Protein backbone atom coordinates (compact mmCIF):
# COMPACT_ATOMS: atom_id res chain seq x y z
CA UNK A 1 0.00 0.00 0.00
CA UNK A 2 1.29 3.41 -0.93
CA UNK A 3 1.73 5.65 2.14
CA UNK A 4 0.51 9.16 1.40
CA UNK A 5 0.87 10.89 4.77
CA UNK A 6 2.72 10.17 8.00
CA UNK A 7 1.10 12.01 10.90
CA UNK A 8 3.06 13.49 13.78
CA UNK A 9 1.01 12.51 16.83
CA UNK A 10 2.66 10.15 19.30
CA UNK A 11 1.51 6.54 18.97
CA UNK A 12 0.32 5.31 22.35
CA UNK A 13 -1.04 1.91 23.36
CA UNK A 14 -0.27 0.09 20.11
CA UNK A 15 1.00 -3.49 20.16
CA UNK A 16 1.84 -5.94 17.42
CA UNK A 17 -1.24 -8.19 16.98
CA UNK A 18 0.75 -11.35 17.76
CA UNK A 19 2.17 -9.79 20.89
CA UNK A 20 -1.39 -8.81 21.86
CA UNK A 21 -2.59 -12.40 21.40
CA UNK A 22 0.27 -13.71 23.51
CA UNK A 23 -0.64 -11.28 26.26
CA UNK A 24 -4.26 -12.42 26.23
CA UNK A 25 -3.25 -16.10 26.24
CA UNK A 26 -1.13 -15.70 29.35
CA UNK A 27 -2.97 -13.02 31.30
CA UNK A 28 -6.72 -13.28 30.73
CA UNK A 29 -8.30 -16.19 32.59
CA UNK A 30 -11.15 -18.16 31.03
CA UNK A 31 -11.94 -19.57 34.46
CA UNK A 32 -15.24 -18.52 36.04
CA UNK A 33 -13.90 -17.15 39.30
CA UNK A 34 -15.09 -14.61 41.83
CA UNK A 35 -13.38 -11.28 41.04
CA UNK A 36 -15.03 -9.10 43.67
CA UNK A 37 -12.74 -6.76 45.57
CA UNK A 38 -12.65 -3.22 46.97
CA UNK A 39 -11.80 -0.14 44.91
CA UNK A 40 -8.60 0.17 46.95
CA UNK A 41 -7.54 -3.36 46.08
CA UNK A 42 -8.46 -3.01 42.39
CA UNK A 43 -6.45 0.18 41.92
CA UNK A 44 -3.49 -1.11 43.94
CA UNK A 45 -3.42 -4.31 41.92
CA UNK A 46 -4.15 -3.10 38.40
CA UNK A 47 -3.12 0.56 38.03
CA UNK A 48 0.61 1.32 37.85
CA UNK A 49 2.51 4.56 37.47
CA UNK A 50 3.10 5.32 33.77
CA UNK A 51 0.08 3.34 32.57
CA UNK A 52 -2.09 4.27 29.58
CA UNK A 53 -5.61 4.43 31.04
CA UNK A 54 -9.14 4.80 29.67
CA UNK A 55 -12.43 5.53 31.39
CA UNK A 56 -15.77 4.24 30.08
CA UNK A 57 -19.11 5.92 29.47
CA UNK A 58 -19.34 9.25 27.68
CA UNK A 59 -18.65 12.71 29.09
CA UNK A 60 -20.41 12.92 32.45
CA UNK A 61 -22.47 9.78 31.84
CA UNK A 62 -21.80 6.36 33.37
CA UNK A 63 -18.31 7.09 34.70
CA UNK A 64 -16.46 4.91 37.20
CA UNK A 65 -15.88 7.76 39.64
CA UNK A 66 -15.05 5.51 42.62
CA UNK A 67 -11.97 4.32 40.72
CA UNK A 68 -11.03 7.84 39.59
CA UNK A 69 -11.07 9.09 43.20
CA UNK A 70 -9.09 6.04 44.35
CA UNK A 71 -6.37 6.64 41.74
CA UNK A 72 -5.97 10.16 43.12
CA UNK A 73 -5.92 8.89 46.73
CA UNK A 74 -3.23 6.35 45.91
CA UNK A 75 -1.14 9.07 44.25
CA UNK A 76 -0.59 7.34 40.91
CA UNK A 77 1.73 9.34 38.64
CA UNK A 78 2.72 9.85 34.98
CA UNK A 79 -0.46 8.31 33.64
CA UNK A 80 -1.44 8.82 30.00
CA UNK A 81 -5.20 9.09 29.51
CA UNK A 82 -7.48 8.57 26.54
CA UNK A 83 -9.33 11.86 26.06
CA UNK A 84 -12.28 10.15 24.36
CA UNK A 85 -14.83 12.72 25.42
CA UNK A 86 -13.25 12.59 28.84
CA UNK A 87 -14.54 15.45 30.95
CA UNK A 88 -14.88 15.38 34.76
CA UNK A 89 -12.78 12.23 35.17
CA UNK A 90 -9.91 13.61 33.10
CA UNK A 91 -10.24 17.10 34.59
CA UNK A 92 -9.68 15.97 38.19
CA UNK A 93 -7.03 13.39 37.25
CA UNK A 94 -5.03 16.11 35.45
CA UNK A 95 -5.70 18.67 38.20
CA UNK A 96 -4.47 16.25 40.88
CA UNK A 97 -1.23 15.56 39.00
CA UNK A 98 -1.99 11.88 38.25
CA UNK A 99 -2.35 12.28 34.47
CA UNK A 100 0.26 14.31 32.62
CA UNK A 101 -0.24 13.12 29.04
CA UNK A 102 -3.47 13.05 27.04
CA UNK A 103 -4.45 11.90 23.58
CA UNK A 104 -7.33 14.23 22.79
CA UNK A 105 -10.59 13.63 20.98
CA UNK A 106 -12.55 15.85 23.40
CA UNK A 107 -10.88 17.00 26.62
CA UNK A 108 -10.56 20.02 28.93
CA UNK A 109 -14.25 20.88 28.67
CA UNK A 110 -17.53 20.08 30.40
CA UNK A 111 -19.70 20.29 27.25
CA UNK A 112 -22.57 22.79 27.77
CA UNK A 113 -21.25 23.72 31.21
CA UNK A 114 -18.13 25.38 29.79
CA UNK A 115 -14.39 24.75 29.66
CA UNK A 116 -12.33 23.10 32.42
CA UNK A 117 -10.31 25.74 34.28
CA UNK A 118 -8.05 23.21 36.03
CA UNK A 119 -6.90 20.93 33.23
CA UNK A 120 -6.60 23.83 30.74
CA UNK A 121 -4.33 25.58 33.23
CA UNK A 122 -2.17 22.45 33.46
CA UNK A 123 -1.90 22.25 29.65
CA UNK A 124 -1.27 25.95 29.15
CA UNK A 125 1.51 25.95 31.75
CA UNK A 126 3.16 22.85 30.27
CA UNK A 127 2.36 20.52 33.18
CA UNK A 128 0.16 18.31 31.05
CA UNK A 129 1.09 17.42 27.50
CA UNK A 130 -1.22 16.75 24.57
CA UNK A 131 0.58 13.93 22.76
CA UNK A 132 -1.86 13.48 19.87
CA UNK A 133 -5.20 14.64 18.50
CA UNK A 134 -8.00 12.53 17.10
CA UNK A 135 -11.79 12.59 16.75
CA UNK A 136 -14.41 10.68 18.73
CA UNK A 137 -14.99 8.23 15.87
CA UNK A 138 -11.24 7.95 15.39
CA UNK A 139 -10.72 7.06 19.05
CA UNK A 140 -13.39 4.41 19.32
CA UNK A 141 -12.12 2.81 16.11
CA UNK A 142 -8.70 2.51 17.80
CA UNK A 143 -10.47 0.27 20.36
CA UNK A 144 -12.27 -1.58 17.56
CA UNK A 145 -9.01 -2.39 15.77
CA UNK A 146 -7.55 -3.68 19.05
CA UNK A 147 -10.61 -5.77 19.98
CA UNK A 148 -10.52 -7.29 16.48
CA UNK A 149 -6.90 -8.25 17.00
CA UNK A 150 -5.77 -6.07 14.08
CA UNK A 151 -3.14 -3.36 13.69
CA UNK A 152 -5.54 -0.72 12.40
CA UNK A 153 -9.02 0.11 11.12
CA UNK A 154 -9.46 2.20 7.95
CA UNK A 155 -11.76 5.23 8.01
CA UNK A 156 -12.74 8.24 5.92
CA UNK A 157 -12.97 10.65 8.87
CA UNK A 158 -10.44 13.41 9.66
CA UNK A 159 -8.90 13.39 6.16
CA UNK A 160 -7.40 16.71 5.09
CA UNK A 161 -7.43 18.26 8.59
CA UNK A 162 -4.87 19.21 11.26
CA UNK A 163 -6.71 16.81 13.59
CA UNK A 164 -5.40 14.05 11.33
CA UNK A 165 -1.97 15.65 10.88
CA UNK A 166 -1.54 15.66 14.69
CA UNK A 167 -2.95 12.15 15.14
CA UNK A 168 -1.09 8.84 15.17
CA UNK A 169 -2.82 7.66 11.97
CA UNK A 170 -1.30 6.93 8.60
CA UNK A 171 -2.88 7.86 5.28
CA UNK A 172 -2.58 5.35 2.45
CA UNK A 173 -4.08 4.75 -0.95
CA UNK A 174 -7.03 2.38 -0.50
CA UNK A 175 -6.01 -0.64 -2.64
CA UNK A 176 -9.66 -1.26 -3.63
CA UNK A 177 -11.01 2.24 -4.38
CA UNK A 178 -7.72 3.97 -5.13
CA UNK A 179 -8.79 6.86 -2.87
CA UNK A 180 -6.85 8.18 0.15
CA UNK A 181 -7.90 6.54 3.41
CA UNK A 182 -6.86 7.04 7.05
CA UNK A 183 -5.63 4.05 9.05
CA UNK A 184 -6.46 4.41 12.74
CA UNK A 185 -3.95 2.39 14.80
CA UNK A 186 -5.12 -0.15 17.38
CA UNK A 187 -5.00 0.99 21.02
CA UNK A 188 -4.81 -1.36 23.99
CA UNK A 189 -5.11 0.58 27.27
CA UNK A 190 -3.05 -0.91 30.10
CA UNK A 191 -6.15 -0.59 32.24
CA UNK A 192 -9.73 0.62 31.71
CA UNK A 193 -12.54 1.21 34.24
CA UNK A 194 -16.16 0.93 33.26
CA UNK A 195 -19.24 1.51 35.43
CA UNK A 196 -22.19 -0.80 34.71
CA UNK A 197 -25.73 -1.21 35.96
CA UNK A 198 -25.31 -4.81 37.12
CA UNK A 199 -22.96 -7.76 36.83
CA UNK A 200 -22.28 -11.08 38.55
CA UNK A 201 -19.23 -11.85 40.69
CA UNK A 202 -17.40 -13.12 37.61
CA UNK A 203 -17.88 -9.88 35.67
CA UNK A 204 -20.67 -10.73 33.22
CA UNK A 205 -22.19 -7.29 32.87
CA UNK A 206 -25.36 -5.63 31.64
CA UNK A 207 -25.53 -1.97 30.63
CA UNK A 208 -28.89 -0.22 30.23
CA UNK A 209 -29.20 2.46 27.55
CA UNK A 210 -26.42 3.36 25.14
CA UNK A 211 -23.24 1.28 25.43
CA UNK A 212 -21.29 4.14 23.74
CA UNK A 213 -17.83 2.62 23.06
CA UNK A 214 -17.62 0.30 26.04
CA UNK A 215 -18.34 -2.79 23.94
CA UNK A 216 -15.02 -2.21 22.18
CA UNK A 217 -13.11 -0.71 25.13
CA UNK A 218 -13.95 -3.58 27.47
CA UNK A 219 -12.59 -6.10 24.98
CA UNK A 220 -9.34 -4.32 24.07
CA UNK A 221 -8.18 -3.19 27.52
CA UNK A 222 -5.37 -5.35 28.93
CA UNK A 223 -6.85 -5.01 32.40
CA UNK A 224 -10.50 -4.11 33.05
CA UNK A 225 -11.93 -2.95 36.35
CA UNK A 226 -15.73 -3.02 36.46
CA UNK A 227 -17.59 -1.00 39.03
CA UNK A 228 -21.25 -1.87 39.30
CA UNK A 229 -24.41 -0.43 40.84
CA UNK A 230 -25.24 -3.93 42.04
CA UNK A 231 -23.95 -7.49 41.94
CA UNK A 232 -26.55 -9.98 40.74
CA UNK A 233 -26.71 -13.76 40.76
CA UNK A 234 -25.17 -15.56 37.78
CA UNK A 235 -28.69 -16.90 37.13
CA UNK A 236 -29.90 -13.36 36.32
CA UNK A 237 -27.26 -13.19 33.57
CA UNK A 238 -28.01 -16.67 32.21
CA UNK A 239 -31.76 -16.06 32.06
CA UNK A 240 -31.25 -13.28 29.46
CA UNK A 241 -27.79 -13.80 27.99
CA UNK A 242 -28.58 -11.50 25.08
CA UNK A 243 -28.37 -8.63 27.55
CA UNK A 244 -24.71 -9.30 28.40
CA UNK A 245 -22.63 -6.56 26.83
CA UNK A 246 -19.37 -7.41 28.64
CA UNK A 247 -18.48 -11.10 29.18
CA UNK A 248 -16.50 -12.25 32.25
CA UNK A 249 -13.28 -13.32 30.54
CA UNK A 250 -12.30 -9.75 29.66
CA UNK A 251 -12.90 -8.59 33.27
CA UNK A 252 -10.20 -8.51 35.97
CA UNK A 253 -11.97 -6.93 38.94
CA UNK A 254 -15.56 -6.40 40.07
CA UNK A 255 -16.25 -3.63 42.58
CA UNK A 256 -19.76 -3.02 43.88
CA UNK A 257 -20.35 0.74 44.26
CA UNK A 258 -23.95 1.99 44.42
CA UNK A 259 -24.20 5.53 42.99
CA UNK A 260 -20.64 4.94 41.79
CA UNK A 261 -20.97 7.37 38.87
CA UNK A 262 -21.72 10.39 41.09
CA UNK A 263 -21.52 13.34 40.34
CA UNK A 264 -21.95 11.99 36.82
CA UNK A 265 -25.15 10.49 35.49
CA UNK A 266 -26.14 6.82 35.57
CA UNK A 267 -28.63 6.52 32.70
CA UNK A 268 -32.04 5.15 33.73
CA UNK A 269 -31.06 5.49 37.44
CA UNK A 270 -29.87 8.95 38.56
CA UNK A 271 -28.99 12.25 36.91
CA UNK A 272 -25.94 14.56 37.04
CA UNK A 273 -25.39 16.28 40.37
CA UNK A 274 -25.20 19.74 38.82
CA UNK A 275 -24.55 21.41 42.20
CA UNK A 276 -21.49 19.25 42.75
CA UNK A 277 -20.17 19.80 39.21
CA UNK A 278 -20.76 23.54 39.62
CA UNK A 279 -18.81 23.48 42.91
CA UNK A 280 -15.87 21.82 41.13
CA UNK A 281 -16.03 24.29 38.22
CA UNK A 282 -16.06 27.20 40.67
CA UNK A 283 -13.31 25.90 42.99
CA UNK A 284 -11.05 24.71 40.17
CA UNK A 285 -10.61 28.26 38.88
CA UNK A 286 -7.66 28.46 41.29
CA UNK A 287 -5.00 25.97 42.38
CA UNK A 288 -6.00 26.58 46.00
CA UNK A 289 -9.57 25.70 45.08
CA UNK A 290 -8.42 22.45 43.48
CA UNK A 291 -6.61 21.56 46.72
CA UNK A 292 -9.69 22.46 48.76
CA UNK A 293 -11.91 20.25 46.60
CA UNK A 294 -9.52 17.28 46.64
CA UNK A 295 -8.95 17.61 50.40
CA UNK A 296 -12.68 17.64 51.08
CA UNK A 297 -13.98 15.03 48.66
CA UNK A 298 -11.02 12.75 47.92
CA UNK A 299 -8.21 12.79 50.49
CA UNK A 300 -10.58 13.54 53.36
CA UNK A 301 -12.60 10.34 52.88
CA UNK A 302 -11.57 6.69 52.79
CA UNK A 303 -14.57 5.17 51.08
CA UNK A 304 -17.08 6.13 48.42
CA UNK A 305 -19.96 5.82 50.93
CA UNK A 306 -18.38 8.54 53.09
CA UNK A 307 -18.01 10.70 49.98
CA UNK A 308 -21.70 10.21 49.14
CA UNK A 309 -22.63 11.31 52.69
CA UNK A 310 -20.59 14.49 52.16
CA UNK A 311 -22.53 15.08 48.95
CA UNK A 312 -25.91 14.95 50.68
CA UNK A 313 -26.40 11.23 51.27
CA UNK A 314 -29.61 9.35 50.60
CA UNK A 315 -31.73 12.48 50.39
CA UNK A 316 -29.57 13.90 47.60
CA UNK A 317 -29.42 10.58 45.73
CA UNK A 318 -33.23 10.29 45.84
CA UNK A 319 -33.46 13.79 44.35
CA UNK A 320 -31.04 12.78 41.54
CA UNK A 321 -33.21 9.72 40.86
CA UNK A 322 -36.34 11.87 40.55
CA UNK A 323 -34.39 14.26 38.31
CA UNK A 324 -33.37 11.39 36.01
CA UNK A 325 -37.02 10.47 35.58
CA UNK A 326 -38.00 14.09 34.81
CA UNK A 327 -39.85 14.55 38.10
CA UNK A 328 -37.72 17.54 39.13
CA UNK A 329 -37.02 20.65 37.03
CA UNK A 330 -33.69 21.29 35.27
CA UNK A 331 -31.09 23.38 37.04
CA UNK A 332 -27.90 24.95 35.74
CA UNK A 333 -26.02 26.28 38.78
CA UNK A 334 -22.79 26.54 36.73
CA UNK A 335 -24.28 29.26 34.54
Amino acid sequence: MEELEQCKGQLVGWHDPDEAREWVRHNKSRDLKDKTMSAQEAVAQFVSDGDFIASGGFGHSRVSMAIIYEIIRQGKRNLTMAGKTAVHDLDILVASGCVNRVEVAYSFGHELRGLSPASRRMVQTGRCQVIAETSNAGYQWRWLAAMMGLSFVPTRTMLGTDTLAYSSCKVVKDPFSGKPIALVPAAYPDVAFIHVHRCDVYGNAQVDGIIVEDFELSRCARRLILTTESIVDNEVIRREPWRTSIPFMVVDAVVEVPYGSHPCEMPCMYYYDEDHIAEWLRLSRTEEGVDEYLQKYVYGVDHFEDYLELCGGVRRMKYLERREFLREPMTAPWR
Partner: protein
Amino acid sequence: MAIDRSKYSLREFLAFSGAKVLEDKKSVFVGTGLPIIAAALAQKTHAPNLLIVFEAGGIGPRLPELAISVGESRTFHRAVAASSMHDVMSLSQCGYVDYGFLGAAQMDMFGNINTTVIGDHDSPQARLPGSGGANDVASFSQRLIIIIAAQSKRTFVEKLDFLTTPGYLDGPGGRERAGLPQGTGPYRLITQLGIYGFDDETKRVKLLSLHPGVTVEEVVENSGFDIIIPDRIEVSPEPADEDLRILREEIDPAGIVLGK
Protein backbone atom coordinates in the same frame (compact mmCIF):
# COMPACT_ATOMS: atom_id res chain seq x y z
CA MET B 1 -28.47 46.13 16.38
CA ALA B 2 -29.94 43.58 14.09
CA ILE B 3 -32.48 41.63 15.96
CA ASP B 4 -35.60 42.96 17.65
CA ARG B 5 -34.78 42.05 21.22
CA SER B 6 -38.17 43.11 22.46
CA LYS B 7 -39.64 40.11 20.63
CA TYR B 8 -36.91 37.47 20.87
CA SER B 9 -33.33 36.94 22.00
CA LEU B 10 -30.42 36.44 19.61
CA ARG B 11 -30.15 32.79 20.55
CA GLU B 12 -33.85 32.23 19.98
CA PHE B 13 -33.44 33.74 16.52
CA LEU B 14 -30.42 31.54 15.77
CA ALA B 15 -32.24 28.40 16.95
CA PHE B 16 -35.25 29.29 14.79
CA SER B 17 -33.03 29.97 11.75
CA GLY B 18 -31.31 26.62 12.24
CA ALA B 19 -34.60 24.78 12.55
CA LYS B 20 -35.83 26.28 9.24
CA VAL B 21 -32.93 24.68 7.36
CA LEU B 22 -33.90 21.19 8.51
CA GLU B 23 -36.41 19.14 6.53
CA ASP B 24 -39.02 16.59 7.51
CA LYS B 25 -38.21 12.91 6.83
CA LYS B 26 -34.47 13.62 6.84
CA SER B 27 -31.81 12.84 9.43
CA VAL B 28 -29.65 15.25 11.40
CA PHE B 29 -26.54 14.54 13.48
CA VAL B 30 -26.42 17.23 16.18
CA GLY B 31 -23.72 18.74 18.37
CA THR B 32 -24.14 20.29 21.84
CA GLY B 33 -26.12 23.47 22.52
CA LEU B 34 -27.98 25.38 19.81
CA PRO B 35 -27.98 22.54 17.24
CA ILE B 36 -29.93 20.33 19.68
CA ILE B 37 -32.42 23.13 20.29
CA ALA B 38 -32.84 23.86 16.58
CA ALA B 39 -33.45 20.17 15.82
CA ALA B 40 -35.96 19.92 18.68
CA LEU B 41 -37.83 22.98 17.37
CA ALA B 42 -37.91 21.57 13.84
CA GLN B 43 -39.26 18.28 15.21
CA LYS B 44 -42.01 20.11 17.11
CA THR B 45 -43.01 22.27 14.12
CA HIS B 46 -42.54 21.55 10.41
CA ALA B 47 -40.46 18.36 10.66
CA PRO B 48 -42.20 15.86 13.01
CA ASN B 49 -40.38 12.98 11.33
CA LEU B 50 -36.93 14.48 11.58
CA LEU B 51 -34.57 11.68 12.66
CA ILE B 52 -32.21 13.11 15.29
CA VAL B 53 -28.94 11.24 15.80
CA PHE B 54 -26.46 11.61 18.67
CA GLU B 55 -22.84 10.48 18.52
CA ALA B 56 -22.87 8.36 21.70
CA GLY B 57 -25.64 6.09 20.35
CA GLY B 58 -29.02 7.81 20.74
CA ILE B 59 -31.01 7.35 17.52
CA GLY B 60 -34.39 8.99 16.91
CA PRO B 61 -35.31 10.26 20.40
CA ARG B 62 -38.33 12.33 21.36
CA LEU B 63 -36.39 14.85 23.42
CA PRO B 64 -38.28 15.39 26.70
CA GLU B 65 -36.14 18.37 27.79
CA LEU B 66 -32.88 19.98 26.80
CA ALA B 67 -29.99 17.49 26.67
CA ILE B 68 -26.98 18.93 28.53
CA SER B 69 -24.72 16.37 26.86
CA VAL B 70 -24.83 14.49 23.56
CA GLY B 71 -24.25 11.30 25.56
CA GLU B 72 -26.85 11.52 28.33
CA SER B 73 -30.11 9.63 28.80
CA ARG B 74 -32.27 12.36 27.19
CA THR B 75 -30.58 11.51 23.88
CA PHE B 76 -32.31 8.12 23.80
CA HIS B 77 -35.59 9.05 25.52
CA ARG B 78 -38.40 7.29 23.62
CA ALA B 79 -35.85 6.71 20.84
CA VAL B 80 -35.95 4.02 18.18
CA ALA B 81 -32.55 2.75 19.30
CA ALA B 82 -30.08 3.15 22.16
CA SER B 83 -26.98 1.98 20.40
CA SER B 84 -23.26 2.71 20.29
CA MET B 85 -20.82 5.21 18.88
CA HIS B 86 -19.46 2.60 16.48
CA ASP B 87 -23.00 2.10 15.16
CA VAL B 88 -23.81 5.80 14.76
CA MET B 89 -20.44 6.68 13.24
CA SER B 90 -20.63 3.71 10.86
CA LEU B 91 -24.16 4.64 9.75
CA SER B 92 -22.86 8.16 9.15
CA GLN B 93 -19.87 6.94 7.17
CA CYS B 94 -22.29 4.83 5.07
CA GLY B 95 -24.36 7.88 4.14
CA TYR B 96 -27.42 7.70 6.41
CA VAL B 97 -26.95 11.25 7.71
CA ASP B 98 -28.42 14.08 5.62
CA TYR B 99 -27.49 17.01 7.83
CA GLY B 100 -24.67 17.56 10.29
CA PHE B 101 -25.22 20.47 12.66
CA LEU B 102 -22.40 22.10 14.64
CA GLY B 103 -21.71 25.19 16.69
CA ALA B 104 -18.30 26.77 16.11
CA ALA B 105 -16.07 29.54 17.45
CA GLN B 106 -13.54 30.18 14.63
CA MET B 107 -14.06 29.54 10.91
CA ASP B 108 -12.41 30.39 7.59
CA MET B 109 -13.86 31.27 4.16
CA PHE B 110 -14.24 27.59 3.17
CA GLY B 111 -16.17 26.66 6.32
CA ASN B 112 -13.22 24.94 8.02
CA ILE B 113 -13.52 25.11 11.82
CA ASN B 114 -11.07 25.40 14.71
CA THR B 115 -12.00 24.09 18.18
CA THR B 116 -8.58 22.78 19.20
CA VAL B 117 -6.16 25.54 20.07
CA ILE B 118 -5.49 29.28 19.90
CA GLY B 119 -1.80 29.86 19.19
CA ASP B 120 0.77 27.12 18.71
CA HIS B 121 -0.40 23.54 19.16
CA ASP B 122 2.42 22.43 21.44
CA SER B 123 2.53 25.56 23.61
CA PRO B 124 -0.96 26.98 23.26
CA GLN B 125 -2.20 30.40 24.33
CA ALA B 126 -5.58 28.83 24.86
CA ARG B 127 -6.33 25.13 24.80
CA LEU B 128 -9.83 24.23 23.57
CA PRO B 129 -11.54 20.82 23.76
CA GLY B 130 -10.54 19.51 20.31
CA SER B 131 -12.64 17.79 17.69
CA GLY B 132 -14.91 15.64 19.79
CA GLY B 133 -17.36 14.27 17.25
CA ALA B 134 -17.29 17.46 15.16
CA ASN B 135 -14.72 16.29 12.62
CA ASP B 136 -16.70 13.07 12.13
CA VAL B 137 -20.01 14.94 11.72
CA ALA B 138 -18.43 17.26 9.15
CA SER B 139 -16.58 14.45 7.37
CA PHE B 140 -19.60 12.16 7.01
CA SER B 141 -22.79 14.26 6.78
CA GLN B 142 -24.16 15.00 3.35
CA ARG B 143 -24.69 18.68 4.19
CA LEU B 144 -23.14 20.56 7.12
CA ILE B 145 -24.91 23.40 8.95
CA ILE B 146 -22.77 25.69 11.13
CA ILE B 147 -23.90 28.20 13.76
CA ILE B 148 -21.53 30.93 14.92
CA ALA B 149 -23.26 33.19 17.45
CA ALA B 150 -20.68 35.99 17.31
CA GLN B 151 -19.47 36.79 13.80
CA SER B 152 -16.48 39.16 13.94
CA LYS B 153 -12.98 39.64 12.57
CA ARG B 154 -11.81 37.33 15.37
CA THR B 155 -14.16 34.49 14.51
CA PHE B 156 -14.23 34.80 10.70
CA VAL B 157 -10.51 34.51 10.01
CA GLU B 158 -8.27 34.40 6.95
CA LYS B 159 -6.23 31.56 8.45
CA LEU B 160 -7.17 29.22 11.26
CA ASP B 161 -4.68 28.49 14.05
CA PHE B 162 -5.67 24.82 13.69
CA LEU B 163 -7.94 23.13 11.18
CA THR B 164 -9.92 20.85 13.49
CA THR B 165 -12.97 20.09 11.37
CA PRO B 166 -13.24 20.04 7.58
CA GLY B 167 -15.23 22.49 5.54
CA TYR B 168 -14.15 22.61 1.90
CA LEU B 169 -10.47 22.42 3.06
CA ASP B 170 -8.47 24.39 0.42
CA GLY B 171 -11.41 25.00 -1.92
CA PRO B 172 -13.12 23.28 -4.86
CA GLY B 173 -12.31 19.56 -5.00
CA GLY B 174 -10.37 19.76 -1.73
CA ARG B 175 -12.53 17.29 0.13
CA GLU B 176 -12.46 14.68 -2.63
CA ARG B 177 -8.68 15.06 -3.08
CA ALA B 178 -8.23 14.40 0.65
CA GLY B 179 -10.45 11.31 0.44
CA LEU B 180 -13.58 12.60 2.19
CA PRO B 181 -16.93 11.29 0.94
CA GLN B 182 -17.93 12.75 -2.44
CA GLY B 183 -20.37 15.63 -2.69
CA THR B 184 -20.35 16.49 1.02
CA GLY B 185 -19.48 19.75 2.77
CA PRO B 186 -20.80 22.94 4.39
CA TYR B 187 -24.26 23.98 3.23
CA ARG B 188 -25.55 26.73 5.51
CA LEU B 189 -23.92 29.06 8.00
CA ILE B 190 -25.94 31.06 10.50
CA THR B 191 -24.60 34.01 12.50
CA GLN B 192 -26.07 36.95 14.43
CA LEU B 193 -26.00 38.96 11.19
CA GLY B 194 -27.26 36.69 8.46
CA ILE B 195 -27.62 33.35 6.79
CA TYR B 196 -24.95 32.22 4.35
CA GLY B 197 -24.45 29.50 1.81
CA PHE B 198 -21.32 28.33 0.03
CA ASP B 199 -20.70 29.35 -3.58
CA ASP B 200 -20.98 26.38 -5.96
CA GLU B 201 -17.89 27.27 -7.94
CA THR B 202 -15.47 28.68 -5.37
CA LYS B 203 -16.85 26.91 -2.25
CA ARG B 204 -16.49 30.22 -0.39
CA VAL B 205 -18.92 31.77 2.09
CA LYS B 206 -21.69 33.62 0.26
CA LEU B 207 -24.37 35.81 1.84
CA LEU B 208 -27.95 34.59 1.30
CA SER B 209 -30.06 36.66 3.68
CA LEU B 210 -29.65 39.46 6.19
CA HIS B 211 -31.46 39.36 9.51
CA PRO B 212 -34.00 42.19 9.86
CA GLY B 213 -32.25 45.53 10.25
CA VAL B 214 -28.75 44.28 9.40
CA THR B 215 -26.79 45.94 6.57
CA VAL B 216 -24.32 44.48 4.08
CA GLU B 217 -21.69 46.81 5.55
CA GLU B 218 -22.04 45.17 8.95
CA VAL B 219 -21.57 41.75 7.37
CA VAL B 220 -18.43 42.90 5.54
CA GLU B 221 -16.97 44.75 8.55
CA ASN B 222 -17.40 41.74 10.80
CA SER B 223 -15.28 39.38 8.77
CA GLY B 224 -11.55 38.77 8.37
CA PHE B 225 -12.10 37.35 4.85
CA ASP B 226 -14.05 38.49 1.80
CA ILE B 227 -17.62 37.28 1.78
CA ILE B 228 -19.30 36.86 -1.59
CA ILE B 229 -22.18 39.35 -1.76
CA PRO B 230 -24.67 38.56 -4.53
CA ASP B 231 -26.95 41.15 -6.15
CA ARG B 232 -30.05 39.69 -4.67
CA ILE B 233 -30.17 39.32 -0.89
CA GLU B 234 -33.23 38.14 1.05
CA VAL B 235 -34.33 39.12 4.54
CA SER B 236 -34.18 36.23 7.01
CA PRO B 237 -37.60 35.11 8.24
CA GLU B 238 -38.53 35.87 11.86
CA PRO B 239 -39.88 33.37 14.36
CA ALA B 240 -43.63 33.34 14.90
CA ASP B 241 -45.17 33.54 18.37
CA GLU B 242 -45.75 29.79 18.35
CA ASP B 243 -42.05 29.10 17.60
CA LEU B 244 -41.07 31.29 20.54
CA ARG B 245 -43.61 29.64 22.83
CA ILE B 246 -42.22 26.19 21.99
CA LEU B 247 -38.64 27.34 22.52
CA ARG B 248 -39.43 29.00 25.86
CA GLU B 249 -41.99 26.64 27.34
CA GLU B 250 -41.13 23.24 25.90
CA ILE B 251 -37.49 23.15 24.81
CA ASP B 252 -35.46 25.32 27.18
CA PRO B 253 -37.75 26.60 29.95
CA ALA B 254 -34.81 27.14 32.31
CA GLY B 255 -33.13 29.33 29.68
CA ILE B 256 -29.93 27.30 29.89
CA VAL B 257 -28.91 27.91 26.28
CA LEU B 258 -31.44 30.45 25.06
CA GLY B 259 -31.17 32.68 28.09
CA LYS B 260 -27.43 33.22 27.71
